[in-house]
């Protein structure tokens, strides 16, 4: 299992969306782990070093913004790129994402090729 594919954590409370993103990223050559909310994501990030996070906004327990803030805070302090994907497309949503520490904000549903392309681009420095 010595896998040197880049590791991505897919964070979404909707199991179906999680499965969809997981499949896309798996096909795109990533090693994918999943979390069902922000809290689980933070827990996972503390034990594993991920190369990319794909985070939903609206989630129970801990929402996407708080999750990203926590990932960037000193507690976790991950410099890995964070991609936020949400159905929210009101003005200001993206700004909130960037203020929290996300590197790119996309609106759901994300085109499959685009997700793969952006994920690869953002992790381009990581050993493939």
């Amino acid at each position, binding site marked *: 299992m010595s896998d040197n594919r880049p590791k991505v954590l897919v964070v979404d409370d909707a199991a179906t969306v999680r499965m969809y993103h997981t499949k896309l990223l798996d096909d795109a050559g990533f090693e994918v782990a999943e979390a069902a909310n922000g809290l689980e994501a933070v827990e996972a990030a503390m034990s594993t070093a991920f190369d990319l996070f794909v985070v939903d906004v609206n989630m129970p327990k801990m929402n996407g913004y708080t999750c990203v803030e926590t990932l960037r805070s000193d507690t976790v*302090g991950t410099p890995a790129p964070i991609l936020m994907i949400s159905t929210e497309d009101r003005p200001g949503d993206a700004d909130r994402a960037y203020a929290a520490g996300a590197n*790119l904000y996309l609106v759901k549903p994300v085109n499959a090729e685009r997700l793969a392309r952006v994920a690869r681009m953002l992790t381009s420095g990581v050993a493939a």
Partner: protein
Amino acid sequence: MNPLLAQFLAEAADLLTSVDEGLLQLERDPGDPELVNEVFRAAHTFKGSSGLFDFPELTRLTHAAEDLLDAVRSGRLALDSGMTDDLLAAFDLIRGWLAHVTTHEQLPATAGPAAQSLITKLRGPLGGEQPTPGDTAGAAVPAAVSDQAPEWLDVFDTDWLENTASWLVTTSATMRFARYTPDEGCFFRAEDPLHLVSQVPALAGLGLIQPFEWPPAETYDEYQCLIGFVLATRAAVGELNHLFRYVPDQVEVVELDGAAIRRHLSGEEPPAPPVEAAAQAVVQSQTENLELARDAYAILAAAQRSLTAESPSGARLSSVAHSVAAAAAALGVPAETVEADVEALTARVTTLLAETPVTPEEPPPVAPPPPVERAPADRARTDDPGGQVGTRILKVDQEKVDHLMELVGELNVAKNGLTFLADAAEEEFGSRVLGRRIKDQYSGLHRIAEELQAAVMDVRMLPLSVAFSRFPRLIRDLSRRLDKTVELVTEGDDTMADKDVIEALGDPLVHLVRNSLDHGIETPAERVAAGKAPAARITLTAVADGDAVIVEIADDGRGIDPDKVKRKAYEKGLISEDELEALTETDAVDLIFRPGFSTADQVSDLSGRGVGMDAVRASVEKLGGTVTMRSQPGRGTSTRLRLPLSMAVTQVMVVSVAGQRFGIPVDLVVETVRVPAAEIGRVLHQDVVVLRGEVVPVIDLARVLDMPWTPEPAADQRVLIVSLHGQRVGLLVEQFHREVDVILKPMEGLLAYAGEFSGTALLGDGLVLLVLNMKEVLSLAARTQ
């Protein structure tokens, strides 16, 4: 079915349940922000997931519901029961669709119109932004509806058109096709063609019209829009008109049915010569490069926003630096040492942005989601042991657990066989040592089997909330129909019981609640006149009581009038005139359980469907439970069901008469006593024994069951004391045996008429044990007396 769709359906079931529950709670407590948020989030998650599939009506309907909930959440609207009705109706419709999807993997053909009327309703309170046919925004109606397929349909490939046509023919549906040719100078009028196209609802297909010849690079003006779009959608013409209301002259809309498309496909006009393959390839690769650049641009723009919004530091800053480097690499800009410094980064981002050959400030989502359900059904990634974060819950098919339970039952029976073997070792083969060793082995096995049984039982346990969950909705709907105001209170939802018990509880509970609403609860006016609060209250309570669970349905309605019940029973010939006089009030209430009884003067469409309380009692007693009812006229009625926690394994006490063994449920057994024959007396032709000052009737079991056995007059008599409906009764038997765990099977076929037996069980030594139905045995005894 593809695993993603299966996953969606499973998830949808949970989400719809929480939407329903939340909505009902909200109606009672409209101000609860946490509750609104919960319902909104469930609807939102559901919409998000549905967008992955080609179910446009589903997504649009959910979207409308979500918008309404959002308005409630933000305080712009107050949820009233009309809106709740519409929301519930919307999710009911969706639930129906999903059932259809489960079998057919597509929405029913009627989905469109059904969704449309609900969407209009849901959007109503929001100011009806949804275009209605008479919408003034669409006054300059640009669209001509025609059944003549235009030639630009050729943009779509033939296979797709053929498939669409046959689908439309099969479903007798139509589809809207639009050609949108943006004006060349549209960018200067702040029009965003791509954004407009991306907003087309229920997009089914999208094609590009490119210029016949692209201008040479040196004269190419990137501020000119040279492309057009052809789109196929299931949205209504009105919706398209509304969407394109500012550019009516640039749009042509036609509505086509399958036949029109087929006519077009088979038309004499040859398919338009496609763009030369090579040119297409160039365009393709250009598009790819363009998209790559656009993504890089988006990342850089995001970085710029992060940097200007606030000065990031630490992990945040290094992540920005990283993403800038990544975007630069994607653009083919030579790598530079990235400074972890806000100013240096800002400068670099600004330079890169200026160099990036893309103009749009925000790349809009380009294409509709891919038709996921056609994707090859790849293995789900559940076999990855690394980094599994999801909850540690296993979803298991109920049948598997049932099978496990059966096996545990068989293990118990087989285990009991060892005790017989031990006896045989001692008696037949004269080896006490071997007998004892088998018994030791037995007790070890017994302990493991018990633990195993407890563990499996634990798996099968479900909270009573599962049985209670349907009542908020039921009560809401019924009370609205009856014009009564009812508040439901549930208590002890967490009390656990075996899933079979929970399932079996459903029908009796529904019946009791219906009864209560229909007969027990008064109209608000009657209540006020009686000095009560206008809103009635129904309480569902569950409590664990040792090996049993007690479920109580109580209302504060008009209660049962014992005199009225007695009169009714007399009129129906259920009781004699003597009984009419002699019956106590409690016994009178009990008459309700007699077959053929109904207190309602008129049979309503709610209760009185030929199922009476006798059916409730029968079905509860079949589960090994009891029903009791208490009522206070004017104060309310409460019905109490007592059910065993589990029905899988029954503990019975074995006794024998005339050499034949019988089982008696241990729950009923109070004690076993030996009394000298002389102490058995007679009162009014009934044998009795006095135990600790209490006179207990004694029944000769052999005589009741018509078996040839006479107790030895000189010896001590063995009497088993049982308790039934609070009454103590002694059973005269020949011998007591041990208690055993058995799996009770109901009597079947010709034996089913024998009501004095509740079932049979197989003993460890292979013998069949008849288990007595004490209630029937006692009434049999009363008759044979």
